[in-house]
């Protein structure tokens, strides 16, 4: 069933009786070519590109809860391609290009809105760093513009420009960045994968792997054993728990990151702004709520909720940047579990076990990576070779000394 304007009109005139579920709810088969563990954005995108690009359709996505109930439904919906390092930027640029064509590609309204991201700078050193990063972005085919204070003032006159401690001296503007309707990404990929024959199996938890002679033969689940030629883990915050069942110990810690939405306001903020002097970033959703976030809670956590000191810290960051929001009331806050890797960069790699693959370590940057993560993971699963923009995302990079540490803070997962 294709969605179109004509279809909406037809359904409106016939009492909306023609709509059907967007995906099936099948029981698992005995075995598949590929079993993907985790029905989040990345897992569903992987299944979609496996079936669409590589024509591998005997695929199951196994999800312990409901699809899109994890971080793809818990993030602040920002997409961007503004990384510095060679191991990262080509990957995120591919991701942004996929975002740009996504809705036409999977025939689903994901509300991709390239409203621009502005990273503010407050010191001369930050301006130098922004210029360097902007040049790296341009060299990798992305876009960047360095604005001075007047340039920023023309866009957002209500910011706190003349703060004595953190005056705004300019910003790095990435016009192609923006926001996306996050739930629709999961639904669109799920529908596209399901249409091509992928089984999406919800409420089915993986309890173990069947590994014989160094080869993974399938997964034990709460719905019984499911055989697979290839098993692909893709479970974000639960990565350590799942891979532990295969005897692996990962360079990952799980941390909680909180996000917040205010009451609905009239349009005030038409892009995404990040504060350079504290950890605070903000956009306005199409419903009018300010969507924003800040730091991790800093300690390891699997609780999908955070603590009040960080709430206060994020609000202080917001007040320092946009004093006008002082009387805005907060509507909701929530937490998601981030698989924080030791250098702040992800993994898309084979494991030492034949037929077992790992995708994870996305820290709090997983959402923007969703299309490219699925694209590159599908490429790896189909060809057994890493995609050319994901060659750096290896599990053994700490052993070989090829860390991809954007922030340069070393093996401290809570600081990335």
């Amino acid at each position, binding site marked *: 069933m294709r969605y179109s304007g004509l279809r909406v009109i037809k359904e409106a005139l016939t009492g909306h009786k023609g709509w059907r579920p967007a995906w099936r709810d099948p029981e698992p088969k005995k075995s598949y070519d590929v079993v993907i563990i985790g029905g989040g954005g990345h897992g569903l995108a992987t299944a979609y590109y496996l079936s669409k690009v590589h024509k591998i359709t005997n695929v199951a996505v196994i999800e312990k809860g409901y699809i899109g109930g994890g971080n793809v439904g818990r993030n602040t919906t920002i997409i961007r391609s503004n990384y510095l390092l060679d191991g990262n930027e080509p990957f995120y640029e591919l991701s942004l290009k996929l975002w740009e064509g996504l809705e036409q590609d999977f025939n689903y309204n994901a509300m991709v809105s390239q409203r621009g991201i502005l990273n503010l700078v407050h010191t001369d050193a930050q301006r130098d760093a922004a210029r360097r990063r902007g040049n790296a972005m341009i060299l990798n085919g992305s876009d960047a513009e360095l604005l001075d204070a007047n340039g920023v003032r023309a866009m957002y006159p209500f910011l706190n420009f003349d703060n004595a401690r953190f005056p705004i001296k300019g910003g790095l503007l990435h016009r192609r960045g923006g926001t996306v309707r996050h739930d629709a990404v999961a639904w669109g990929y799920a529908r596209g994968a399901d249409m091509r024959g992928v089984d999406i199996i919800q409420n089915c938890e993986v309890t173990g792997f069947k590994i014989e002679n160094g080869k993974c033969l399938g997964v034990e689940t709460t719905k019984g054993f499911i055989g697979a030629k290839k098993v692909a883990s893709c479970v974000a915050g639960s990565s350590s728990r799942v891979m532990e069942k295969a005897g692996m*110990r990962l*360079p990952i810690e799980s941390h909680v990151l909180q996000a917040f939405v205010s009451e609905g306001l009239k349009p005030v903020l038409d892009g995404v702004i990040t504060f350079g002097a504290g950890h605070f970033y903000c956009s306005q959703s199409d419903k009018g709520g300010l969507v924003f976030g800040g730091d991790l809670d800093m300690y*390891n956590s699997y609780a999908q909720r955070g603590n009040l000191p960080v709430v206060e810290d994020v609000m202080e960051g917001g007040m320092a940047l946009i004093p006008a929001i002082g009387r805005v009331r907060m509507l909701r806050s929530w937490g998601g579990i981030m698989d924080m890797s030791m250098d702040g960069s992800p993994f898309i790699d084979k494991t030492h076990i034949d037929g077992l693959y790992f995708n994870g370590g996305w820290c709090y940057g997983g959402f923007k990576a969703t299309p490219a993560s699925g694209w590159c993971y599908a490429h790896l699963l189909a060809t057994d070779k890493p995609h050319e923009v994901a060659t750096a995302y290896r599990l053994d990079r*700490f052993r070989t000394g090829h860390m991809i540490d954007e922030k340069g803070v070393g093996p401290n997962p809570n600081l990335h």
Partner: protein
Amino acid sequence: MIRIKCPICGLRNETEFTYGEDANVNRPSMDEQGVQPWVDFVFNRDNPRGWHKEYWHHVQGCRQWVVLERNTLTHEIGNCELARDAKLPPSQASEAAE
């Protein structure tokens, strides 16, 4: 707000502390020549879902490092002792070296 019972100062708010790191990893002996034990020590973690021993620094208080038991799923707080007194489990890192 997590409340941590510092052995020196008593019950204090988490905002007085800075999180250090996982206290279950031990440094290999300094004459260790293998690469993997050091990789395990610096980079690889158990990352448990449940009780976890970890270093915190009472930086706004007595400035002592403590080892705190905390549940990563419920945020429940367990035993807290000075790091210098803590008996830590044998190093995962040295086991993995074999």
